[in-house]
């Protein structure tokens, strides 16, 4: 079974007459809030400093996003 990811992919139709080099696989984000439902009590937390820099107190919602430039430099998923 494929590993679960919050980044989904699809393959758009590619025409031989498309002017730009084809991007064969496009991705989109499905953030964690779509999967949690009504938040259960006592979910694992970050400590205060970690929470501030993550932008969330609860680990389950942490969803780092890397820009195209950062991905080129080896960041991201």
């Amino acid at each position, binding site marked *: 079974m494929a590993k679960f990811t919050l980044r989904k992919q699809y393959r758009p139709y590619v025409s031989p007459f498309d002017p730009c080099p084809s991007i064969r696989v496009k991705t989109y984000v499905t953030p964690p809030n779509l999967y949690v439902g*009504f*938040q259960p*009590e*006592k979910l694992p937390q970050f400590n*205060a*400093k970690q*929470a*501030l820099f993550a932008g*969330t*107190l*609860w680990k389950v919602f942490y969803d780092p996003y890397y820009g195209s430039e950062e991905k080129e430099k080896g960041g991201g998923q």
Partner: protein
Amino acid sequence: MSQKELPKEFYEMMEELQAIDFVLVELTLYLDTHPDDFEAIEQFNENAHARQILKQKFEQQFGPLQQYGNSYSGYPWNWDDPPWPWQI
């Protein structure tokens, strides 16, 4: 024009305050939809208490964080002393 450069401790203490306040913001929104989570309310009250102590410590060194009477004033009136948050 007078220029006071902020000491390193300002940035450190500010970050501490931002961190604890962030926990309080997160717990506030959470409790708005989970009003019966006893443990979360305990955590909220502990953080609210720690926040008050940190606020006092910060204000003694760097001046009032809020006004309209939510903070004490030094002499002369020091609420509008720069820098403002977007300037630091």
